[in-house]
């Protein structure tokens, strides 16, 4: 998998180098917004007592896992070979969220989080939800191939890579009893909770660009599952898969 990632990154860099020596056909600035749905499993880092997502003997042990990613960015697009091939670097802000919420949260449901344990004494806390938010700022790089051009629509496929650095991260534990709020920092320190400072992924997508008339376009892309994604971008969940969509407003110059 690592060799595949390296190959794809090398391919994109070589393409960029080659294309930068070609005659530029077109230049477009793209403002884009994307969202990615993530499938996830509970991370083993968190010592949560109840089994996730199960009913036992009619008792509700269900805990809902949620994870999603949104981003916004701006990308200049350079086209070559009669607009068949284009390359887009850019700047992207990525927001990654994860949460573990008791399924009967609104009925004051809770689960148990082990706060600490030292041999013969163990402390649990009743917890309603744990939420985590992480923001990254980074650089995407896309290579796009547009084989089909029509009057008002064109179809394309993209190969993309992105590299981003963490600029913010916070984890919040919602205890059932307000008295336990003072425990939050102690819990997070004891568990050595942390997320990866770097977020990177390599993925493919396919989409279409639509003419809005008078030199304005919009694009819609659908992501295929990522070939590669960095690990530990969330301390709450292990992200297994990734897919989503991106909407762009494209302004040619």
């Amino acid at each position, binding site marked *: 998998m690592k060799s595949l990632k390296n190959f794809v990154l090398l391919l994109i860099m070589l393409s960029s180098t080659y294309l930068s020596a070609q005659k530029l056909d077109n230049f477009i600035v793209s403002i884009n917004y994307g969202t990615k749905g993530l499938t996830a499993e509970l991370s083993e880092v968190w010592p949560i007592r109840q089994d996730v997502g199960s009913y036992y003997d009619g008792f509700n042990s269900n805990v809902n896992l949620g994870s999603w990613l949104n981003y916004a960015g701006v990308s200049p697009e350079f086209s070559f070979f009669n607009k068949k091939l284009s390359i887009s670097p850019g700047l992207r802000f990525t927001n990654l969220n994860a949460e573990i919420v008791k399924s009967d949260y609104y009925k004051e449901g809770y689960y148990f989080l082990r706060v600490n344990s030292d041999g*013969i004494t163990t402390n649990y806390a009743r917890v309603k939800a744990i939420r985590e938010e992480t923001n990254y700022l980074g650089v995407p790089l896309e290579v796009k191939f547009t084989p089909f051009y029509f009057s008002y629509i064109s179809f394309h496929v993209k190969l993309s890579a992105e590299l981003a650095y963490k600029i913010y991260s916070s984890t919040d534990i919602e205890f059932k009893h307000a008295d336990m709020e003072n425990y939050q920092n102690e819990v997070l320190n004891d568990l050595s909770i942390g997320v990866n400072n770097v977020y990177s992924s390599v993925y493919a997508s396919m989409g279409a660009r639509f003419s809005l008339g008078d030199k304005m376009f919009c694009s819609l892309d659908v992501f295929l599952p990522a070939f590669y994604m960095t690990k530990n971008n969330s301390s709450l969940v292990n992200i297994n898969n990734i897919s989503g969509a991106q909407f762009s407003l494209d302004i040619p110059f």
Partner: protein
Amino acid sequence: MKNIIKISCLSIVFISCLLITSCSSSDFELSKSVFIEDYDFPGLPVYSEWGYNTFGMYIDRRSFISYGDVYPAKIIVNPDTFNLTFNGLYNNIPASLRISIKGYVPTDYPELVELNDSTLDLKASNCIVTLKQGGYTTKLNIIQGNIKFKRVQNLYVDKEFAKTILSGTIEFKTFLNNEPVAITNGRFDLGIGYENFYYY
């Protein structure tokens, strides 16, 4: 005067109800059984130290496990003997395995932490093991074996003492129906509290 007494009594009853209700709800959550199957030993729960209120063991190839609404374990100390009873299903029939230790007398469940990281030889002279099934109770003739209390811990929830958790393993050889049998891969993770500890 009569009205004051009436109001005071009603207040006491009301507050008592609240206290009882709050105590019951916290015990109720921790009294649930969380059975997570061990994929290495099908039919048995994984070994855990969370107070999942489960146990399981193979009697030859058949499983004897905790089930349903029945308390998986009760501890009865009376008067000079400690009795740990596992209540479960064996061959789809309710069964109980009781381990009795003469001379060990904890008067309350927090004292059970004395058992932490200890091993009891089931063939010892002060130890009796009985199996109850289908209304018949059989004292088992132990060939060899032991019960290990790998971890015994006092559990606090939101800084209040809640239960004592007994976690460990058990294995031994004995006779059933005049045939030698092996009880293997036994594991237990039990929450002991007011509702299943008896001293009298």
